[in-house]
């Protein structure tokens, strides 16, 4: 059901990990729906994304879109990164099954959330960037008892 590119990015995900003292971190999604993406950006003084890492809880498509999104923004300026839309991620992966399109939206939102964090920390305004909807903050149920 997945394209070869999706399978490749799922099986060999690029840029998995964390960045300590990252310029910006964004987490989007909701464990209830089964997808959470977190993206770390390392941005230099010129506003160029020097490094990017991600961590994802989710299905094959969620991992692949995270991986592809990080590839697409790496080395780009903040403004260029704004052009990495969910469509761009999907196209780069040779498409996604209809039920998985939301994963690519999540990838776009994760990038935006990380950029928002960077902008807030540095007190700057990134043109076209809106405050991300971050819905994972709601209190999770206590799950320690069932293990």
């Amino acid at each position, binding site marked *: 059901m997945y394209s070869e590119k999706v399978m490749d990015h799922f099986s060999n995900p690029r840029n998995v990990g964390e960045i300590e003292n990252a310029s910006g971190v964004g987490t989007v999604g909701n464990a*209830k729906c089964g997808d959470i*993406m977190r993206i770390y950006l390392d941005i230099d003084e010129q506003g160029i994304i020097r490094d990017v890492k991600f*961590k*994802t*809880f989710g299905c*094959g498509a969620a*991992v692949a879109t995270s991986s592809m999104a990080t590839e697409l923004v790496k080395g780009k300026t903040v403004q260029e990164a704004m052009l990495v839309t969910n469509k761009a991620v999907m196209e780069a992966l040779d498409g996604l099954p209809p039920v998985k399109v939301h994963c690519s939206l999540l990838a776009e939102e994760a990038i935006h959330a990380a950029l928002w964090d960077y902008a807030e920390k540095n007190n700057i305004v990134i043109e076209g960037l809106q405050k991300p909807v971050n819905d994972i903050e709601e209190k999770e*149920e206590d799950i320690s008892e069932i*293990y």
Partner: protein
Amino acid sequence: MKIYLDNAATTQVYPEVVEAMTPYYTEYYGNPSSIYSFAGEANKAVSHAREVLANMIHAKAEEIYFTGGGSESDNWALKATAEAYADKGKHIITSKIEHHAILHTCEYLEKKGYEVTYLDVDEYGTVKLDELEKAIRPDTILISIMTANNEIGTIQPVAEIGKIAGKHGVLFHTDAVQAFGHIEIDVDKMNIDMLSASAHKINGPKGSGLMYIRKGVRIRSFIHGGAQERARRAGTHNVPGIVGFGKAAELAKATLKERIAYETVLRDYLINRVLEEIPFSRLNGERVNRLPNNVNFCFQYIEGESMLILLDQRGIYASSGSACTSGSLEPSHVLLAIGLPHEIAHGSLRLTLSEKTTKEELDYTVDELKKIVERLRSMSPLYEDSLKEKRS
């Protein structure tokens, strides 16, 4: 290496079964409803299968009706009973963990003016008998509770449910698709009025099922258009499919005891290894009172579909109750019904064994699974957060 651990989805058709079926495609292809002698062989084969299948559940041959599979039988049991007993009432009782063939049919009936009570289950997936009895009303016409659950394998107290149904004069249907041929079923001892079963879960062909309907139960025709199956289920008999079902049942009956013993040992070995060796894992369903071939785990912090793809890449075929495998955003209704939060339910894995599964296969599966779980956790933000919480 290819390791098939999805025997609850479907099973291999045994060569003996195919062999038994073949002549009814090529040689005795006559329509069993025809009058000439050539059709006699086909007719005889259908009768023989009916007897074998009746025998499996201690029913009479004339109480077995052939259908196109388990889902058809479930639909028939609910819709036709609802119609036939509408003068008595319009209330049906079922559980929250039934197969969708039951649940979606109930939703359909609700739209037609019927009322349905969906019973809760306990944390192991067992229907609560006191709640069942409390739910019975004067206008209750049917109780439909599965014999064993397809996802988590929990075996229901069918005999007790039958007793309660009988005491209140309510019909009792059980969806035995996962249980038939895997555990002992006695429709008399268990006071079952109707039962659904399917051939492809017991090494028979797909598209062949049955419904047991106790003599005396009022039930309407489901498929109109012929006199087959006492005019209740029209359509030319799927003779090879029926023969295959009969043969598969014969084999299943002959090996039942040793198969249960063998699978139970392997099942428990698998459960113990996983729970001991993989942290933050849990077994879903009842520990002992479960189908001999069913194992269902949840692994915290990871998602089911990712697990399935990585297992597939290592030649291991399994299934999950995660949303991503169902085409919706909701994880398994069964896992939610036993009280699991969504994020845990997303990380489920079902492994269903067969009598051909070996210990070596399970060892390889657990070894690979450990690496897969570890790998997915290493990329999970939830795992990262939990580690940080523990450190702080």
